């Protein structure tokens, strides 16, 4: 009897189906919501017949997306580059500024309210100025993406570092750790889960920022970014292409969000609950 049981080897294969079931369980709700939304959209178009110029059906949008796939793919690539560039700048500047503010109560009280202006100033209003400062082309889109996404990183970094365990700070002091050493070995790791959350928010915002920058400063032509595709489609009354381009922008945002989430998972999975 004992030879037939072999309990230990039997446990390893049972984890794979368990993980698959868990992944499936996680995927089903959003998938179901998406499918239901599309059906409701299509149903609304059938029921109300609002006119293609007002609200195209999902089928029309899908057809347009397929017909314009080359245009949309180029647009997604260009906008994705701008968003990623702006996001990288925002991540660097946000963590750096958050760390500096966390190190000094005086600086934090003096500069943090000013930093919040970055969140409050309407980007659309200052976008034309970015063209004046940065010129036409990718620089304006990158700057726009960076401006709109830096604050979440800064705020999350600041909050994370200010929440560092006081006992550990005292321990580092007892051990005569230097300021930079304490930042690198204690405060930054402590704040990392919070920073990752801020980076996730910033990832989505960076795409919005890039597109706003493209609205005012991108070159149009054979290879146009998403912002220009949207503007052109609006002017041509191609509402279905507008929807397709907006969905393309969402895909770019999801991709960036997913990349950041994956990096965060890699960084946190071994030691923090949020990375599990």
């Amino acid at each position, binding site marked *: 009897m004992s030879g037939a049981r072999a309990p230990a080897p039997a446990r390893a294969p049972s984890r794979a189906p368990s993980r698959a079931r868990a992944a499936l369980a996680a995927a089903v709700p959003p998938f179901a919501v998406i499918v239901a939304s599309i059906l409701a959209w299509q149903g609304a178009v059938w029921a109300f017949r609002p006119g293609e110029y007002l609200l195209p059906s999902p089928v029309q949008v899908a057809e347009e997306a397929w017909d314009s796939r080359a245009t949309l793919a180029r647009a997604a690539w260009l906008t994705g580059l701008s968003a990623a560039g702006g996001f990288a700048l925002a991540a660097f500047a946000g963590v750096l500024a958050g760390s500096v503010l966390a190190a000094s109560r005086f600086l934090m009280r003096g500069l943090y309210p000013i930093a919040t202006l970055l969140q409050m100033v309407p980007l659309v209003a200052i976008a034309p100025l970015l063209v004046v400062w940065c010129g036409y082309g990718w620089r304006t889109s990158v700057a726009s993406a960076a401006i709109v996404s830096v604050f979440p990183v800064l705020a999350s970094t600041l909050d994370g570092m200010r929440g560092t365990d006081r006992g550990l700070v005292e321990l580092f002091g007892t051990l005569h750790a230097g300021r930079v050493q304490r930042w690198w070995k204690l405060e930054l790791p402590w704040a990392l889960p919070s920073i990752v959350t801020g980076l996730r928010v910033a990832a989505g915002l960076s795409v919005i920022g890039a597109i706003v920058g493209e*609205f005012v400063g991108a070159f149009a032509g054979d290879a146009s970014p998403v912002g220009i595709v949207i*503007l052109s489609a609006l002017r041509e009354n191609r509402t279905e292409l507008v929807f397709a381009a907006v969905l393309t922008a969402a895909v770019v945002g999801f991709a960036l969000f997913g990349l950041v989430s994956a990096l965060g998972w890699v960084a946190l999975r071994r030691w923090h609950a949020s990375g599990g």
Partner: protein
Amino acid sequence: MSILQRLAESCGIPGAVASARGVAAAVAVALLAACGEPGGETKPSAPAGAAPAPRAVRLQLNWMPEPEFGGIYAAQQDGLFAREGLAVEVIAGSAGTPTAQMTASGQVEFGIVGGDQVLTLREKGGDLVGLFAIFQTSPMGVMVRADAPWKSLQELWASDATVAMEAGLPFVRYLNQKHPGGKVRLVPTGTGLAAFEQGAVQAQQCFISAEPVQMELKGIPVRVFSLAEGGYDPYTVTVATGAAFLAKDRDACAAFVRALREGWARYLAEPAKYNPAIAKLNPGMTLAAMDVAARKQHDLVAPPGTGANEVGMMERARWETLARQLVELGTLKAVPPVIDDVFWNAP
């Protein structure tokens, strides 16, 4: 307040800065339409024995109050709409106002749209009908500095100049088709005239009667290449209504056009009488600029020889030409089978 924005507005699309709002507005229009709010149902009831209340209608502009709408404000100021039994609410536009969609869906009875937009929207199910063409000659043009090296649109298009011009507008396709192999780099017009003033762009889309005037008043001499002279001459600024409203209330449409025609006749004769009121509604444009603009646009609205009753009238051949051009440009799939459905010249 760039020309690009203005031109884009004439096509129902905002300039670049406002484009995000344009998208939001378009979505809002779609939602409102889905909720089914037909316009033109607001005829007030009058008590027995009393004079009938004026017919309330709305006119949605696609830009801020400027001389290009001078006849509308003249008709309002002089009570011409009221004389026709209409209580007209003139709604100023802004960057992003989707006038064509609002008019086609019946949210307003009348709207200012581009002639090309009448055709393209009809193909998408938005039954617009042109009622009154404010400009008989399109005021669209491309502005360069007076000392710029290019002597024609062809030379400009062959250069590597940066041109502030909204991609997607039909005339951009027209220029690309007419001057193939062009090397110009197109950028949005969201910076208004600032980029042109600073030299960041070397040419800019404009209304002949607007942006060049502002540049001249700032001491920057410019030259303008007319798109109409270059072969693309649509009814750029057109008062339109929805086909359903026209079918239901043709008398109101005719009364509206009569008042409009008389208003334009008065404005063309004496713009200085009406410009101060318009200037009050639009602090962004000086009275001096409005006076100059009114003079410059006079012959575009009423070419020499135009009779008082001919202002705003549209020709079948012009609509057919525009439709054929749009088909050649790929903006329109086919010429409308019945071109007479596209416009209506009120008696």
